């Protein structure tokens, strides 16, 4: 299950999906919206996604994890649209015969999501908003 969704996330749905009689472990990860970032008071995050490609990239991450670790099943759902403080933006569940593979594959999945999947978060904070990732380095020429 590799999906981008406008609905609030339901971890149990992912756990049910990866439940497997040959699994001895299920590891889950939830990314949540924090109320502060780099000294700013965050009000909400607003996610945009190139959904078709994002789902394709998520399943590629799943395929890579299967090659590297002995996992049974993986599920990743990423939210798009506004996500309020404390709410979940991404949920991952991985089942494996043994816990070490499940932990490592889960960690791999969240790190890869942050590198390659075409999903973007706009941070809405007190006094402004910013697309994360574009605010440093070589920015888009601002305000022209």
């Amino acid at each position, binding site marked *: 299950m590799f999906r981008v969704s406008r609905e609030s996330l339901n971890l149990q749905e992912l756990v049910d999906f990866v439940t497997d009689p040959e699994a001895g472990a299920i590891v889950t990860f939830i990314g949540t919206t924090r109320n502060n970032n780099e000294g700013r008071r965050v009000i909400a995050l607003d996610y945009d996604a190139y959904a078709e490609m994002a789902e394709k990239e998520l399943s590629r991450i799943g395929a890579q994890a299967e090659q590297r670790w002995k996992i049974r099943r993986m599920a990743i759902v990423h939210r798009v649209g506004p996500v309020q403080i404390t709410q979940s933006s991404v949920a991952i569940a991985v089942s494996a015969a043994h816990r070490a593979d499940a932990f490592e594959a889960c960690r791999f999945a969240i790190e890869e999501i*942050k590198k*390659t999947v075409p999903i973007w978060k706009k941070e809405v904070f007190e006094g402004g908003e910013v697309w994360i*990732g574009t605010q440093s380095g070589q920015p888009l020429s601002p305000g022209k």
Partner: protein
Amino acid sequence: MKVKVKFFAILRERVGKGEVVKEVDEGCTVKELWATLQKDHPKLAGAQTRLLYAVNQDYVSGDHVLKERDEVVFVPPVSGG
């Protein structure tokens, strides 16, 4: 020939819409298309060095040659999670 360009995140805001159809010459590369778009939409100027390119939902290099009806997306730094 025509290609479809979709805009997301900061680029969608800069352009003011999510999608445009562009007429391009045979042999046009993704990078050349970006240069043309910057002329159409001056607010896109300056973004070049931090973009990845996707054609038909796969990452490609800037010298990838476009074909009729390709779907092109310019990918600003991703920040999912």
